[in-house]
């Protein structure tokens, strides 16, 4: 018999019961809850007179609906006026832990759960949000669920799930200067396609991954869902154990030692078989920028918009043409030099301290172009404090960037600022779908350095020229 994969080992530890037709009843170790996808789940519980099964394993923070401009309150926009008090009521009436808008631990759930030591290696982490895969950076099995499933987790601390197929993506080589983990994963999606991982859990592996820090691994896992996989994960190693060690909810002392001993056994066995494989040499990757309306529509920043006549098939040809029409681009057009009106640095993809440091390092005496509005939005209150302690906020504001409050911000196009149809935004978030950041808004996904540099240049630009 061949060995077992990381995902299968974690999965097996969580199977409460095997159900008919290859479905498993899976235990959920951490249930993260946010403001927008939870209200109907709580209503379902109330309607069926059900209690929360494991209140001590349920944690929430309002983040999607919030305005992210400095000085915001929950009253700042109509959506948060509605969703934040509702979430508070649902949480307090059921005795659940809420990191509320003014809490020092508030933030985007996928940013705060690792920060607080809620996300641990080998745990199952779910949330009514598809980017729960971010938590895989710590070696947790994280995945997004729908609102009915949120209700199911609240009421039973479990989920009915089909065991995913396994895929391993191995990265070799080293990233060139100014090329970030975000560039690596955007390149990977464009190389493999937006559905290469459908039905799979993706394990990211290889010497490069082993050298990366946890925040960088989380950026990579964050976009697993944009390859079609519900789960992205990196085997927990010393880097992960060290990250977890002093966190608020993490085990300590002997309990931590026992946990680490357990976690060490989770890595995929040397002879484990995967259903799908990909090997990516990262050495030649340039900073990336998306040109279309799927994260797979990505090109090197010094590249060009592709020609639909080169699309692999008729359906893709139609999709590319539609994307170009929406984005206001012509086949073959260079991406560099394309004027932008907005820059957004933040989100559960790139809203952590290392991202803000990378963006700030690009400023180098420059100023945001006069026709650009650029916002830097920390992923959590803790990231915000840490950045301020280093003076990053002053660097940003002196250069004309706005320094926001923690939240999802412009990623879902909420956040209390309105982008108009036809406007172009270079964004460090994860989705460039039609209408994602606002009706008719044109999103170009990029890493933090490329985004900051574009804000200063006033157009899409190659950050490698900054040096």
């Amino acid at each position: 018999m061949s060995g077992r994969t990381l995902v299968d080992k974690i999965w097996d530890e969580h199977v409460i019961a095997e159900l008919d037709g290859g479905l498993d009843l899976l235990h959920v170790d951490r249930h993260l809850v946010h403001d927008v996808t939870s209200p109907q789940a709580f209503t379902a519980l109330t309607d069926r007179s059900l209690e929360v099964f494991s209140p001590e394993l349920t944690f929430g923070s309002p983040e999607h609906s919030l305005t992210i401009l400095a000085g915001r309150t929950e009253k700042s926009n109509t959506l948060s006026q509605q969703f934040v008090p509702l979430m508070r009521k649902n949480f307090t009436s059921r005795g659940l832990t809420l990191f509320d808008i003014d809490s020092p631990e508030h933030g985007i759930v996928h940013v705060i759960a690792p920060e607080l030591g809620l996300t641990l290696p080998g745990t199952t982490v779910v949330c009514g949000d598809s980017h729960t895969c971010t938590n895989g950076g710590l070696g947790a099995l994280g995945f997004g669920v729908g609102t009915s499933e949120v209700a199911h987790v609240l009421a039973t601390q479990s989920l009915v799930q089909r065991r995913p197929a396994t895929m391993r993506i191995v990265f070799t080589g080293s990233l060139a200067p100014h090329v970030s983990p975000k560039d690596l994963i955007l390149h990977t999606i464009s190389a493999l396609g937006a559905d290469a991982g459908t039905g799979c859990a993706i394990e990211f592996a290889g010497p490069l991954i082993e050298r990366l820090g946890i925040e960088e691994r989380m950026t990579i896992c964050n976009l697993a869902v944009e390859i079609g996989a519900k789960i992205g994960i990196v085997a927990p190693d010393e880097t992960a154990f060290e990250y977890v060690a002093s966190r608020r909810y993490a085990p300590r002392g002997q309990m931590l030692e026992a946990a680490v001993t357990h976690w060490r056994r989770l890595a995929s066995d040397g002879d484990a078989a995967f259903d799908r494989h990909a090997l990516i040499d990262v050495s030649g990757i340039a900073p990336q920028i998306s040109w279309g309306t799927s994260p797979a529509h990505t090109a090197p920043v010094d590249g060009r918009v592709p020609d639909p006549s080169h699309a692999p098939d008729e359906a893709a040809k139609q999709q590319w043409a539609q994307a170009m029409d929406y984005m206001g681009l012509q086949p073959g057009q260079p991406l560099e030099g394309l004027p932008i009106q907005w820059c957004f640095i933040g989100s559960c993809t790139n809203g952590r301290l290392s991202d803000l440091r990378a963006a700030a390092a690009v400023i180098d005496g420059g100023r945001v172009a006069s026709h650009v509005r650029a916002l830097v939005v920390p992923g959590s209150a803790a990231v915000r404090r840490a950045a301020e302690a280093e003076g990053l906020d002053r660097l940003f504001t002196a250069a004309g960037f706005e320094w926001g409050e923690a939240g999802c911000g412009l990623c879902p196009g909420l956040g209390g600022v309105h982008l108009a149809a036809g406007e172009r935004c270079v964004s460090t978030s994860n989705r460039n779908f039609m209408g994602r950041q606002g009706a008719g808004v044109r999103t170009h996904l990029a890493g933090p350095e490329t985004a900051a540099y574009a804000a200063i240049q006033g157009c899409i630009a190659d950050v490698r020229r900054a040096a």
Partner: protein
Amino acid sequence: MDAFTVVRGPVAPLLIPDINTDVISPAHGGQGSMRANAFAPLRYLSDGTDNPEFPLNQEAFRDAPILLGGHNFGCGSSRESAVWSLIALGIRCVIAESFADIFYGNCFQNGVLPIVLGPDELAALARESAASDAIEVDLRTCAITTPLGRTIGFEVNPTRRAQLLEGLDDLDVGVRRRTQIEAFQRADRVRRPWVYLESAAVESPPTSST
């Protein structure tokens, strides 16, 4: 939720790959109700009028209860409102080359049947039903009857099928398993004690740093 046994009607062809849930259920730029809002980026032109190219705007498919999709249908956001939007349009069945995992699961929680067919079968089905002739999807026999009277079989997980036929979502069934789940947690507390945090919501958070 509504049970699913047989659905009969025209099939609206939307054969573009990677139709995402932000497009099916947009957070912006909609026109009020969930029904009006569904597919807004594809369904309306920039001046707000109907896009005549969009199948559900064409007379033949306006009330189609079945949708044909490309590959990776329902990718992106986990929002269940994508399925609710389909229901608001009267769609009870989506037949596609492949589905994104979260969307696929959400369908079964709402009485919507997702069916996977190969690209050739899909193209044939689109051709046969192009003139808005009705097809029939029967979950009891797991068969599609085309306008030409051909039968195409499909597969659904037996648990999912049984629940759909009875109109049961996972929660209806899951609450019956609470004793089993308690037993699992008792044993797991011994195996992995660090997972089980004892008190909820009582501790006041210390001032923390990153």
